[in-house]
């Protein structure tokens, strides 16, 4: 379930904008460059982990979330380098395929289904903070 971090009305507007952007991105796929995030657009994703790459240069999780149409969609969530997370005890076994988690982070540019991870809340309530090194 994708949950807005901002008031509902604002989110409806953003979803509309997102839909428009998605159409635009599709029409122009060759020029839509992924993996750039937007500093003032954050979101929370609740879902099930479907794939884990716990590797440098960047940790990557795929998460399957329910969308507004009753269907499912897969989001690509990016974290810090392994060396940064491992030092804090966040390892390849911390989050596994099939785990239910809630992720909070920055949204990808142009409505692309990507998230730059800030926090991940595990099923037992543990909150992992991915604060990029300063």
């Amino acid at each position, binding site marked *: 379930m994708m949950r807005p971090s901002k008031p509902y009305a604002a989110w409806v507007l953003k979803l509309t904008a997102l839909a428009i952007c998605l159409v635009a991105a599709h029409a122009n796929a060759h020029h839509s460059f992924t*993996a750039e995030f937007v500093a003032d657009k954050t979101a929370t994703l609740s879902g099930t982990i479907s794939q884990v790459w716990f590797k440098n240069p960047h940790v990557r999780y795929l998460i399957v979330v329910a969308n507004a149409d009753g269907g499912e969609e897969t989001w690509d969530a990016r974290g810090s380098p392994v060396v940064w997370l491992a030092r804090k005890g966040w390892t390849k076994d911390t989050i596994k395929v099939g785990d239910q988690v809630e992720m909070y982070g920055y949204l990808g540019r142009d409505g692309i289904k990507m998230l730059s991870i800030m926090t991940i809340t595990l099923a037992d309530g543990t909150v992992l903070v991915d604060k990029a090194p300063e």
Partner: protein
Amino acid sequence: MIQLRRNSLLSALWVSLLIAMPVVATADVEGRWILSLQDKNRTLVGLLEIDKGEGGWIAHLEGGPASVTTDGDNIVIVADSRDVRGFVFDRRMTGIVDGDTMKGTYAQVGAAAQKEAPGPWSAKREIAESAALARPMPFDLTGTWTATQELDFRKYTMSLTDAGEAWLEGYLPYYDQPDVRCTSIGLPALATYSFPFEVISTDNRLTMIYEYQSRVRRIWLDERAPGEFVPPSRMGHSNGRWEGSTLVIETTNLDKTVRDFRGELISENAVIEERYALSDDGNTLTAVITVQDPEYYSRPPVRRRQWVRNDAADIFPYTCDPDSFYLKMYEDGELDMYLDRTDKRF
């Protein structure tokens, strides 16, 4: 008659005084300033250079363009920066100039992941050092060093030559930065990253082992030149010398590659100068890193970094696998686009 002449003399004096004194005198800020800015519990430091231009001040912070405007003793400085998540924003400093100092308050403008609370800033005119003449007073770098909070302004735009600007136009950091596909980011970027490094000192060399990308470099203290068949590389050939208690490392024999996160080029003729100084208690190491490369930069870009001694820290292994990077492009139908831009990668 005499009275009249005295009056006209006085009038002439007044007129000349009025011409000589503008209504509001503008502070003279031309010169080199050490700018510092307080963000919560960290202090950023940078070199601010201000020159007189035809239409106003021409300013550079850490070698990159900044805006400086003055009105009487009031000053406004605006400089861009890039935070650790890659978001670009401005810092706007407003304040008062008082002779050889200026100070005021600043605020972050634009969205950034790393939120900075409005705080004080100040600047003092740089005092030229003549360290080059000082006798060597080496310190021992042996040990493991972990990065402190960033003290660098992380200036985003730099002053580039036309060739430097032309290269940047088509550059896409997400696809083209060497480290996204596990290739060495090299110097100077590696020396500014916030991962730990270990130093081993032996007779005529320092060996630095960087956690990020598991890179190793040797800094020769015996003035040797690169061996005849040693090719240029991203870590280059480094010679170290002591200017007083500052370790100055000069690196040449570099590969053509990118300098930093934005992807500006450095040429094979670039010379990187790193100046390392140790705090009096021996625990804090500070570096100022300058790139001399007139082919791509009209003014040398500057970066800074600070570490604390932390011999208990482990240097973690850095195992890198670009599989998910290529897979993502495959899934998104971007592989052709990626292959078409081979000339953007080193």
